[in-house]
């Protein structure tokens, strides 16, 4: 079962490697959105410091949503998703592996690049690490929750907009705890409670969402 999950992750990473531009687009989107705010609201350092955690987290949210469409749609169109239903392991395992691979190419780069983007907001030195840590815990949740939406909107016309409407409200807790962690440290409080709540979200999502996603994929292919 683990070997099969590894195969799926390896396959999706290989496909992402062959289609590097898709991965680059979402990352570039994040960079651009997060850079627009300093240009738009002006170079007032205190204001920038105040909005930084929220803006960077919202940009990460949107960028992660942008890449969700790719999670199942291409496999659905060429019939490989069908074959995954007939794989030798439960569909939940396949779906979890695909979601993990999706996070590796869409979430992990955000974690790496966010501190760099945050330089534009002149954050206090101690905050960069917290920002990266909150994204490290939060972006997998975005992929896991988003996978349910991606599976539910499979094969629908105009699925992209519907996907956003379905998924964005569910992202709210992650946004609050994620941005909250950075704000708490900035305001002299510890980030531990927020990060603990994010980790709890991650655990719940990791255990619960693959089943829901698998069920949605089954419905889409029926």
């Amino acid at each position, binding site marked *: 079962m683990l070997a*099969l999950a590894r195969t799926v992750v390896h396959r999706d990473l290989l496909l992402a490697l062959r289609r590097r531009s898709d991965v680059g687009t979402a990352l570039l989107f994040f960079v651009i959105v997060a850079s627009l705010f300093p240009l738009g609201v002006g170079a007032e350092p205190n204001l920038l410091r105040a909005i930084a955690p929220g803006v960077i987290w919202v940009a990460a949210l949107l960028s992660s949503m942008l890449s969700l469409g790719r999670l199942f749609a291409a496999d659905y169109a060429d019939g490989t998703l069908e074959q995954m239903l007939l*794989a*030798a392991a439960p569909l939940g395992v396949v779906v979890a592996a695909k979601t993990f691979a999706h996070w590796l190419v869409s979430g992990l780069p955000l974690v790496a690049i966010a501190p760099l983007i945050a330089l534009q907001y002149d954050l206090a030195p101690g905050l960069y690490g917290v920002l990266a840590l909150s994204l490290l815990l939060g972006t997998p949740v975005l992929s896991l929750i988003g996978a349910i939406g991606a599976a539910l909107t499979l094969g629908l016309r105009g699925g992209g907009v519907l996907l956003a409407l379905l998924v964005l409200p569910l992202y709210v807790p992650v946004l609050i705890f994620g941005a909250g962690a950075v704000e708490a440290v900035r305001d002299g409080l510890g980030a531990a409670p927020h990060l603990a709540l994010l980790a709890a979200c991650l655990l719940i999502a990791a255990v619960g969402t693959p089943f829901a996603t698998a069920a949605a994929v089954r419905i889409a292919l029926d």
Partner: protein
Amino acid sequence: MLEAAELECERGARTLFRGVSFVLRPGELLRVAGANGSGKTSLLRILCGLSRPSAGEVRWNGQPIAGIKEDYARELVYIGHAPAVKDDLTPRENLEISCRLAGRAASALALAAALERLRVPELPVRKLSQGQRRRAALARLLVSETPLWLLDEPFATLDAEGISLVDGLMGKQVDGGGAVVYTTHQEAGSRSTRVVDLGAGA
């Protein structure tokens, strides 16, 4: 080994077929016939467990397939309408991945031999013709050792040589004690075949 009991399929408000029953024994070749829209593909998808019938059930060695999902999936190869090969991968990579997904590890030699036998060039699938894609998908038959094959239009887009090759593979499968269910419009196939006729369609 495979048993269909009173299968019924509804699509939207209309009933495609009802009361489809048959028993497939080792060494048998079953052709699903019927007009366009009569539900041949739907029947095949029900047989492999992708769709649920609105009534009736499919049993594998006496057990309903709904209860033995992955164990049943390990026993079959399903080749559907879509070739299920990724455009960005080579036929070899596609074949290797689908082998692993099916829970088998085929040797590099076996993979290469299968693709060579079907004359699939080792280019990204994006650059292949429809017929070559089909061949890349059908290569799975050569590396599978499963007792049941479910083939949806295996001859579509193939040339005469390809058709006889696939026909030969199906013959070898049933001679070896396997079973094949397939749909086709052509009267292809030299051997005696049982037929399930779904009629003229709704």
